[in-house]
């Protein structure tokens, strides 16, 4: 089932300013899963085009005070969500952040009406990539 159908959302646009880097971002969706909450969730497919693993240790956003990597697992019909300390993308492979799987939680917006989001992906102190996306409802 398509993400757009699942969440009744439409991807309005996304871009990366680092298309030639070993890390490639695609299928970006930033959405508010709950109309009662100001936080947002982000789904994205990250591809490592290099021969070395890429470890994302931190994600920042100018629009949110905190960005956390979470993973939802359903085991024995019980849904559990946990925070991950890092996201490893093996060489020549993709990691898909998607509903009911790994995803980004964007917490504590710095403004009341966040419509666009920039995500900054770090490995240690090194900025790997900036990603821009519009927030759908």
């Amino acid at each position, binding site marked *: *089932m398509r993400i757009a159908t*699942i*969440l009744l959302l439409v991807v309005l646009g996304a871009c990366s300013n680092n298309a030639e880097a070993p890390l490639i971002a695609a299928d970006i969706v930033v959405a508010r899963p*709950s*109309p*009662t909450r100001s936080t947002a969730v982000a789904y994205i497919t990250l591809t490592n085009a290099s021969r070395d693993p890429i470890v994302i240790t931190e994600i920042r956003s100018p629009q949110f005070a905190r960005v956390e990597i979470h993973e939802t697992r*359903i085991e024995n*019909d*019980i849904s559990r969500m946990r925070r991950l300390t890092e996201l490893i993308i093996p060489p020549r492979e993709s990691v898909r952040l998607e509903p009911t799987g790994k995803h980004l939680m964007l917490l504590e917006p710095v403004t009341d009406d966040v419509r666009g989001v920039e995500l900054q992906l770090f490995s240690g102190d090194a900025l790997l990539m900036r990603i821009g996306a519009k927030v759908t409802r």
Partner: protein
Amino acid sequence: MRFSRFFIAIVIGTALAIGIFAGYRARLPSAAPTTATVLPQPLPLPEFELIDQFGNGIGPDAFRGRWDLVFFGFTNCPDVCPVTLTTLASARGRLAEARYEPLPRIVFISVDPERDTPDAVARYVAHFGDDVLGVTGELSELRRLTDALGIYFERVESGDGDYTVDHSAVVLVIDREGRFRAVFGSPHNVESFERDLPRIQAAG
């Protein structure tokens, strides 16, 4: 010539009758559910008193006289809950398009009553269609219901002052008598509900 016309009429009439019968049989949900698990004995709902999205008290009587698909979750849940509710709403929509009756009501019961006020639940369920009822209430009353139905939920601190809630991801089928009749395990998909719910209902 007269015999020939009579013979043709018989053949056409028989073919029509077979066609009508076959079509009728095809519409009958006579097979057993393939995804859902039907309880050997329906389980009556226990006594409980929660609050619906309008602020009204709601107990087991509110589940009598109609079929319900019940899901336990919380409005801060980022993916499993909205995905499941969207799946249920889509399945209900497809059944409605097929003019199937009786259509089920979708009931969302919060396992995070501390944050999910009736107003919060009302705004949340409004995103999943018209015939979705949101329920919240006191934790102790919620436990009376979930313990009786085998529904698990537990608050888990995330260490930064926030918390999440682990919870069962199943969908329960409550029948017209207000009894727990069947359960859909996860992961959920529209086709399973569209196919199996009529079969469960047809069993009585």
